């Protein structure tokens, strides 16, 4: 009797609201002492008192999965189904952060998409600390805005599977929501201007309009702002802009994420790698293999000296593994230079398509010496992973382990 949902309650997503929590977790809550003692006969008002006494959030913990009081209160709210105003009151209150989180959680479970975004996004500005109980039984530190971010982006939290809601940009494009305005927008604007001034001498880009940059900037968990910004910008450019420019350039820009913003080497590498990969797919496989072999980071200095271009090492390494036994002579490189000299880019492409490279004996000999240590290095890499074991079952198992982040099987 005590576990029955209020008969006047509406059904959520077509079913009893309590079914939002899985059967096993629900049974654990029903058997819990906190539920039996404290949550018996709670109404909306007395629930608030209980919520004010909360001091941590969490799902289930321990070997036999004991639920936290937070989880018990969530189930109680699902059982009595308070009015939307009450839930909004929970969220709006400033004094008790755990009441706020409880209200936000309940709204995420039961609210419609519009309400979820409308009421939860202001909570991004709340950066108070929150204690979270992990599955091991120990506590971890987190913040209110981190929790809200989890609720909005992940689909599993506190041992409850979150119902699916529409993505923000779907609602934006339907006109139901406004573009998101971050509280930190002004700070970003300053940073953005600073970077634009720095990069004026590159003189490549048409200078993306600021408007694109700000659109749909939902916060992310990453601390690397640049990467964030780049991703958002490019994804929006992909969606919104007209590609009436040179097709090649746009294709490359899409693939090379955020090339004009991030000046880091890594970014160059990524861009090069992506462009490499795409271009390579189009070209003749054989020629690619020849070109990509034996490109080593040791050779950066040499190549720069000789003004050569170089392929990305990882690409080369992968292809080398395949071709190692063929003993084919490495042909001249036609790949993109790693240097930061952007003017080379378009010229480089041209060079790439037609260049045959130098055949001076001096260079060949010099590069031969580099092949040996590189080959040995690649042989070792081949063994480490274990995914190329002759027995297909073991290779498969090793592949799975590698994807989970475990070491390969010891045979």
């Amino acid at each position: 009797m005590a576990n029955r949902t209020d008969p006047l309650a509406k059904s959520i997503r077509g079913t009893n609201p309590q079914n939002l929590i899985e059967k096993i977790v629900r049974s654990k809550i029903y058997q819990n002492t906190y539920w039996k003692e404290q949550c018996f006969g709670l109404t909306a008002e007395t629930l608030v008192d209980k919520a004010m006494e909360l001091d941590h959030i969490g799902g289930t913990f321990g070997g036999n999965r004991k639920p936290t009081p937070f989880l018990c209160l969530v189930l109680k709210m699902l059982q009595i189904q308070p009015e939307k105003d009450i839930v909004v009151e929970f969220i709006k209150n400033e004094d008790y952060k755990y009441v706020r989180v409880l209200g936000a959680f309940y709204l995420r479970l039961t609210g419609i998409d519009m309400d979820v975004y409308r009421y939860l996004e202001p909570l991004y500005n709340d950066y108070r600390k929150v204690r979270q109980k992990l599955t091991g039984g120990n506590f971890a530190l987190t913040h209110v805005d981190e929790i809200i971010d989890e609720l909005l982006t992940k689909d599993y939290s506190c041992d409850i599977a979150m119902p699916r809601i529409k993505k923000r940009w779907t609602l934006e494009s339907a006109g139901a929501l406004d573009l998101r305005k971050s509280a930190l927008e002004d700070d970003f604007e300053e940073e953005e201007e600073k970077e634009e001034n720095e990069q004026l001498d590159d003189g490549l880009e048409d200078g993306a309009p600021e408007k694109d940059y700000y659109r749909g900037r939902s916060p992310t968990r990453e601390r690397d702002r640049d990467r964030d910004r780049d991703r958002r910008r490019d994804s929006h450019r992909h969606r919104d802009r007209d590609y009436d420019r040179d097709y090649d350039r746009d294709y490359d820009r899409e693939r090379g994420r955020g090339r004009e913003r991030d000046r880091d080497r890594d970014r160059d590498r990524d861009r090069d790698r992506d462009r490499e990969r795409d271009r390579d797919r189009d070209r003749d496989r054989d020629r690619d293999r020849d070109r990509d072999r034996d490109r080593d980071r040791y050779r950066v200095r040499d190549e720069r000296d000789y003004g050569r271009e170089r392929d990305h090492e990882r690409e080369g390494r992968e292809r080398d593994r395949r071709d190692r036994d063929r003993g084919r002579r490495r042909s001249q490189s036609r790949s993109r230079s790693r240097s930061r000299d952007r003017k080379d880019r378009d010229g480089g492409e041209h060079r790439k398509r037609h260049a045959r490279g130098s055949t001076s004996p001096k260079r060949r000999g010099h590069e031969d010496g580099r092949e040996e240590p590189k080959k040995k290095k690649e042989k070792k890499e081949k063994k480490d992973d274990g995914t190329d074991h002759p027995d297909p079952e073991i290779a498969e198992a090793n592949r799975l382990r590698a994807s989970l982040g475990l070491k390969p099987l010891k045979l």
Partner: protein
Amino acid sequence: MIEVVLNDRLGKKVRVKCNEDDTIGDLKKLVAAQTGTRADKIRIQKWYNIYKDHITLKDYEVHDGMGLELYYN
């Protein structure tokens, strides 16, 4: 490399290849990949001993071919 059999007595019987120095948590991940449940929903027991996530199979003296009980949280 040892092979462990996990049985949930409801129709799911899973053979998993793993190392002796893998932890129970790693084993749960492998089982989750094979059965399709989430790793944190799985509980591995032997009679009433619930196996803890951070202890290795070697320490629990799980040998090759041994059967463990599979339960759900």
